[in-house]
């Protein structure tokens, strides 16, 4: 419970900071009033149309990545697993890249995320087809790797065939991931899909706890492994597919957050699920804040900062726990 309190305070603090820290100097009372449509109309626009969707998307993307990372690690009983493993994020990125390349993205505001979601759904269908309704975790991973590799190859091909350097650089920048310049309509598009994913993933706790003892023991404890696998796959696909569709590829969160919090969750996969959801939100909010505080004029990308924060953190963690791991 101490962990829960600490994470709620941390995430809440990051969320507020994300609302009230930015390029335009708006005082807290003014900002709060503007958030509810009161006061200076310019401030109202900034708070309601720029900062609120940005903070909400950062938190939602963080919850999705943290939750699915913890679920994936729990299912595979491997601390190196991450949500990108099943190929959904790679496929969503491919959908977005194709939308950018064909000019579809410019047709209407949500064209890009909708194309990304369609490709994410396609990837899940393909993985289910490849891995079969019943099957081991290994077939799931191998199918995921195959789909990932294919999506990455097609993404490269699209870049390769890109007719002009502007389109190529636009694609490159999109691939780095960001929650800047998003509108509330992005939130409304992603939220229902992500929420569905969260509900599916949050229901995995009991099964993941049992899986600590291996697949055979878990099944004898009354866990249906084929159902658990399907729930994990659909939950991850919805959460991560939607996250990638609105924010691009943000790596490292799903890998690092469960790893950092595992000790505080006493190693229990079910505790780690919600802890990683909150921790993921805090981490993405923090990374997004960093992009605004350091080099605000250069449009630093979220995915880049995330990796820059994540990698040393991960190294530090490995250094500290190397004896446990060995």
């Amino acid at each position, binding site marked *: 419970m101490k962990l829960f309190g600490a994470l709620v305070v941390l995430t809440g603090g990051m969320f507020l900071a994300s609302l009230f820290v930015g390029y335009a100097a708006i005082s807290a009372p003014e900002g709060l009033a503007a958030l509810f449509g009161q006061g200076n109309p310019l401030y109202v626009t900034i708070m309601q149309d720029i900062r609120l969707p940005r903070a909400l998307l950062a938190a939602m993307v963080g919850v999705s990545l943290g939750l699915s990372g913890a679920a994936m690690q729990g299912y595979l009983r491997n601390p190196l697993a991450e949500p990108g493993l099943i190929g959904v994020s790679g496929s969503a990125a491919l959908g977005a890249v194709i939308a950018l390349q064909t000019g579809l993205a410019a047709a209407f505001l949500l064209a890009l995320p909708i194309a990304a979601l369609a490709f994410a759904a396609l990837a899940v269908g393909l993985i289910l087809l490849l891995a079969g309704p019943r099957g081991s975790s290994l077939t799931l991973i191998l199918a995921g790797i195959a789909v990932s590799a294919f999506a990455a190859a097609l993404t490269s091909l699209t870049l390769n065939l890109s007719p002009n350097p502007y389109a190529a650089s636009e694609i490159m920048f999109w691939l780095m991931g960001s929650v800047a310049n998003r509108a509330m309509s992005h939130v409304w598009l992603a939220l229902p899909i992500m929420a569905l994913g969260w509900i599916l993933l949050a229901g995995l*706790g009991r099964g993941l*706890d049992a899986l*600590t*003892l*291996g697949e055979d023991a878990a099944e*004898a404890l*009354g866990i249906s492994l084929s159902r658990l696998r399907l729930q994990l796959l659909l939950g991850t696909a919805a959460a991560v597919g939607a996250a990638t569709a609105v924010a691009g590829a943000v790596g490292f969160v799903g890998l690092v957050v469960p790893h950092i919090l595992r000790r505080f969750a006493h*190693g229990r996969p079910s505790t780690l699920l919600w802890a990683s959801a909150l921790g993921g939100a805090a981490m993405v909010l923090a990374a997004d804040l960093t992009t605004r505080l350091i080099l605000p004029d250069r449009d630093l990308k979220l995915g880049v900062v995330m990796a820059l924060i994540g990698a040393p953190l991960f190294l530090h963690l490995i250094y500290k726990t190397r004896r446990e791991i060995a």
Partner: protein
Amino acid sequence: MTLLTVQNLTVRRGECPVVDNASFAISPGECVGLIGPNGAGKTSLLRGALGLLPFEGTSTLAALPTRKRSAQAAWLPQNREIAWPMSVERIVALGRLPYLARGARLGPTDQNAVDAALTRMGLQTYRARLATALSGGEQARVLIARTLAQDTPLLMADEPIAGLDPAAQIATLQVFEALAQEGRAVLTSLHDLSLAGRYCTRLILMGAGRIIADGSPRDVLTPDLLAQVFRLQAEVLDTPHGPIIQPLGVLT
């Protein structure tokens, strides 16, 4: 009343039956040892009876819905896995999962079952230690305690004493013996024939997927059957502690 009835159970790996038409029943108060050489089909028989493998024939356990089955029989698999650095107490408490509602905490009954399991396996002082930091034998005892915490009428274990020191082997089998005397039942595979003869009330001998003999230790552990199934030349000493098997050589 029986706790498990298996009839004409056949488990196939590809075309080849690894368990061939096995039938037996287990009643409360029995501690049944499943013996046989490597590859005789002991693990497949146990997993098939639990419904963890596709099979032909009938098994009363496999016919139950998963939730009911987990309240009827606890299962200790052969490969001992503890994936995450959790405390011994939390690992043992996983045995209470079938009884807990989604997201519920351990109630007093659950805590009592966990405490009793820890005490039975002599693990009280290990309670707060990280299970992953223990030795292989200690981890095996933690996992046995986990199945005890499940508090089921039937306990099925696959080579539970492999890799334990002699005292821990005997202590574990004494726990099984005590469970049987309390009116529960245990079905366990094991390789130590003398210990099987001493602590089991009944032995099932498997060879090449078939049940070759099923009866009291004195009837099953005979030089003839040992030679026929294990290819073992052995002397069987009848002692007040039960039959003691002295293997002398391998028959070719």
